[in-house]
């Protein structure tokens, strides 16, 4: 999945600015795709698309802020860099609070724009990798049986096999068998690794 080329999606209702910024990014070696409205961009956005969004704040129909919110709740939350004609402090703070990568005026220096895009792309790469990793772990944990989950919870609480057997009302041999299955399904080699994985996957301990 990481082989997918990172793209800069430019969303702006001002055709001239759209062309200008597209040329600049293209000549800087970026792959770009242009949209004249937020809704057009959202309907054409695929789940596999990677990169970042460079959006105008003021647009007819759905504005930049609404676009960011919709994107954040979607399955493919691409980072957003806002470019606006005139930025007041309130809107800027609000945008950053909602997770925008940056908030710049349209006349901002090129280096600043490029740097923001770079950060956004890196953030996408980072977050995407984390997201994929989490999803993979999740799928591994999904294969566990309810009994194995109970045993895992007890192990994470630092209990001995004997205590686990007593707690769950099964014999010690069964506990050992569950633990063997656990380490096999989750592909871990030690208890420490098991616990770390469980925490990474956000596994919740069943009481």
């Amino acid at each position, binding site marked *: 999945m990481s082989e997918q080329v990172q793209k800069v999606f430019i969303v702006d209702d*001002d055709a*001239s*600015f759209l*062309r*200008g*910024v597209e*040329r*600049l990014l*293209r*000549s*800087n070696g970026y792959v770009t795709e242009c949209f004249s409205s937020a809704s057009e961009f959202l309907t054409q956005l695929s789940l596999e698309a990677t990169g970042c969004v460079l959006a105008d704040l*003021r*647009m*007819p129909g759905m504005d930049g802020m609404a676009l960011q919110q919709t994107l954040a709740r979607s399955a493919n939350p691409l980072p957003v860099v806002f*470019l*606006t*004609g*005139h930025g*007041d402090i309130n809107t800027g703070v609000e945008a950053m609070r909602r997770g925008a990568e940056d908030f710049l*005026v*349209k*006349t901002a220096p*090129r280096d600043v724009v490029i740097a923001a895009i770079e950060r956004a792309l890196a953030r996408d790469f980072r977050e995407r990798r984390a997201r994929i990793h989490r999803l993979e772990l999740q799928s591994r944990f999904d294969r566990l049986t309810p009994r194995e989950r109970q045993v895992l919870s007890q192990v994470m609480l630092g209990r001995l096999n004997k205590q686990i057997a007593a707690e769950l009302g099964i014999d010690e041999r069964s506990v050992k068998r569950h633990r063997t299955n656990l380490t096999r399904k989750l592909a871990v080699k030690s208890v420490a690794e098991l616990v770390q994985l469980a925490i990474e996957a956000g596994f919740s301990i069943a009481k």
Partner: protein
Amino acid sequence: MSWITVTWSMATGMSLTLAAVHLLVWLRDREAVANLLFSVSAVAAAVIAIQELALMRAQTPAEFGAILRWMHVPAATLVVALVLFIRSYLGAGRLWLAWLIIGLRVLVLILNFFLSPNVTFEEIYALNSVSFLGETLSAPVGDMNPWRLLIHLSMVLLLIYVLDAAIAARKLGKGRQALVLGASIPFAIILAATFSGLMVRGILPGPFVALIYQIIVLAMAFELSVDLIRSKQLSCGLQESEERMRLAARAADLGFWDWDVMRKEVWVKDVGKEATGTFESGHTSLEHYLSLVHPDDRGSLRQAVDRALEHNEDFHAEFRVTGPSGVERWIAASGQVERGAQGKPLRLRGISMDITARKQFEGELQRHRLALAHAQRVSAMGQLSAALAHELNQPLGAILRNAEAGELFLHQDPTDLGELREILVDIQQDDRRAAEVIDRMRALLRHRELRFEAIALQELIEQVAALLNAEMQARQVTLRTMFPPGLPRVRGDRVHLQQVFVNLLLNCLDALDARQNGSRQIEIGAVQMEGGLVELAVKDNGTGFDPDQLPDPFKPFVTTKSEGLGIGLTISRTIVEAHGGRIRVENNPDGGACIRIELPVEQEEGVA
């Protein structure tokens, strides 16, 4: 000298004097017909007196008869003059009766010259010597003429005529005149009839008519003299009131003028010379006066004069006049047309006032208003600064990005010239866009007087909409415009009208902010109205005007907005009214406010 001669001569002299006085009055004032008639009757009485003197000294019956015959001429004249005098002076008396009396008297006069010796006597046999006042006079002895009855009849009719006229005059409120004339004339008539009877019977030497007529002449003279005295008093009063008027006029800085339509002359009273704008009193020709009037005001002054003359309207005009010293003054003149018998205008008379100071104040007020309008434009621009910065940064940002890209493209090998050309085209376009934004802003901020031109409203509204486009987008408001095809252009000042619509649209936007759900809409529509007007309606579906909160939305410095100055609508109204238009506010039946503006159509187009 005998008493008879003295008395009769005095009567003659008195009659002639009175006749001369009243003839003079008539010569001065041709409308004083009563004075003329009196004069005639007094002359007749004088002639009678002379003839009577001769009659009493007659030596033969033939001489007596001849003199008596000729005495009928002044007697008839006197009666006719008396009849006419009563009608003219009392304004009463039956017309048919008057004609009947005159007719009878003329008949008597004609008969008088056909009958011998005259209409009084059929025959005079002899003359008796009668002693009277110590003098020996002749009294006739003869037969009465039966035609004499006609004289009696005319005298009876005259009696009735005078009494009837006196009663009618009393009802007309001329009590004193009616009493004096109504008592003295009948008394004289009866006395004359009696004396005449005595003379015919040979008791009196003559009819003594001269003395009797003196009663009538004196009564008439008394009446007319009273009138003369009264008119003297009136003229004194008039002079006084004129003096008062002059003082008042001077205090109020008023001038009097009088334009003689026939002679085409302007007459200016010496008070308030400056107020009439002529700077000198007296006569001047209309052309000369008009040449002093400012060329721009001549047409409207002429029109006002023509309107007053043709449509019988009151005259009113305000115009500038340049005096000999080159000082320009504003004059306000009002007047009325005075018409002759056939409704033909004779003269235009009125007052005028120097309103230079008022006009200066008005001009100053207008300048203050414009300054306020300018201040308000600046403040509106402040509110719009965010939107304007956005508008401006859009093309500037595009130019910057294109220029940066172009620089990078130059370093590529091979250089993509096509792409570079496109970049340059885009940069030029965006540069123009930025310049337009700045122009619009500067035009709106410029501080200047009203300058009228023909304006296409649709184009104007589109320019304003472009100025506010970013703001409307930011507030999620949609604007719809509906202009019918063939809408005439209006006469207006582009910048000031733009300001009005910026104000109105900003108001709409503020009103729409409160609207949480549903679409926010502004609608601008125009229709052509009767009377050379175009009405523009700006509607929104916002909160509308709350009459409790804002009884008069045009009142200055009253606002419902936390940051508002409260002068937007005030200034809008000032501007619209300076265009000769009207602005009013109402609420839509389905919610929201509607502002209607009427503007005059550009003249040439209205005619076409």
